């Protein structure tokens, strides 16, 4: 890996960690509901770094967490997180970031907002759930249906994050055209 990519990947992993610690921000659509989220960081990793580097960045973040850094939201970390029934969602983050980046690259719609929203809905929500739900069901003995119902409670928040990602992506690529996203 080029040094430049290596450092970008590392700093973005740090950003995902930082997102889990304090930053909260308001979204105009959510009317005062503060959004704090690492899934937001996962979606942004795919959008900003692209499929391959985005996925590597998320994987690196999870590796640092597994080694014991308390960087998951709520100050969690360590191997216990990966032994818990929610570990599937974390594994899904890696694939999720990859899919977000890949869809972003394929779509390149006229609208960055629409591309980023579709990419993060499919990659950052659907793919993550595809990993998370079966693992939750298998590890805890729940039925797939029950696991899906339990997961569905997070759906509204996750859709908000996809919208936030799309808004951030739009302002990012407009303000920094050199960043590489070229809408048709």
């Amino acid at each position, binding site marked *: *890996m*080029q*040094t*430049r990519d*290596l*450092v*970008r*990947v*590392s*700093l973005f*992993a*740090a*950003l995902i*960690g*930082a997102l889990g610690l*304090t*930053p*909260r*921000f*308001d979204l105009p659509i959510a009317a005062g509901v*503060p*959004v704090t989220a690492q899934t937001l960081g996962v979606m942004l990793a795919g959008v900003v770094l692209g499929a391959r580097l985005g996925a590597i960045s998320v994987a*690196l*973040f999870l*590796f*640092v967490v*597994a*080694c*014991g*850094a*308390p*960087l998951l939201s*709520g*100050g*969690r*970390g*360590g*191997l*216990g*997180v*990966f*032994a*818990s*029934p*929610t570990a599937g969602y974390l594994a899904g983050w890696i694939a999720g970031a990859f899919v977000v980046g890949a869809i972003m690259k394929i779509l390149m719609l006229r609208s960055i907002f629409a591309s980023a929203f579709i990419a993060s809905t499919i990659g950052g929500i659907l793919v993550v759930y595809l990993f998370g739900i079966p693992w939750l069901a298998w*590890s*805890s*003995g*729940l*039925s797939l249906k*029950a696991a899906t119902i*339990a997961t569905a409670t997070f759906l509204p928040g996750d859709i908000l994050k996809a919208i*936030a990602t799309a*808004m*951030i992506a739009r*302002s*990012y690529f407009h*303000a*920094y055209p050199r*960043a590489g996203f070229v809408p048709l």
Partner: protein
Amino acid sequence: MIGRPLSKRTWLHFLPAGVKLLFVAMATIIFFWVQNPIVLLISLGLVLSVYFAAGREAVLRLKLFRFLLPILIIVGLFQFASSGFFDALTSVSRLALMILIADLVTMSTPMMEMMDAFLPVLYPLRYIGLDPAQLALAFALVIRFVPVLLDDWMRRREAWRARGGSRGSWRLVAPWIAGLLSIADRIAESLDARGFRRD
């Protein structure tokens, strides 16, 4: 579950990290096959006694598992409704057991030692272009830059507030990321200037 290792050294600290990881892997596989709630509860008692033996700090650590309670309660209720008391007890005690065993390793192993223990497993990554030697640098950068990025966020937020903004806005995120990437590129340049290139 809070990752930080204990500050006081316990007897667990003297085992090599690799041995502890192997132990956790084996325990996880074995306990997945145990269906008897009594065996699981006894094992849970044994693991808890390790926590108590490791001292006060380790016991206080148990409090940090509170966030797991809702998950365990939901799993327990669902199981109770669908297949009865014993299955619910089995699932819940197995989950608690595996998480507590895994955390014993985290509790007693410094982060860098843990990374070294993982390296042999990650060696095959070389074949898809990821050099494990680069991992050490990446690891250190992540740890170092979390506080730097948080500080950067706080400064941006202060400036935003001073100009009449609310407590923080999504509008701050894009420049935050752009700033991060430009810092990253400067770091990469200075690393290369000092001879760090391993393509």
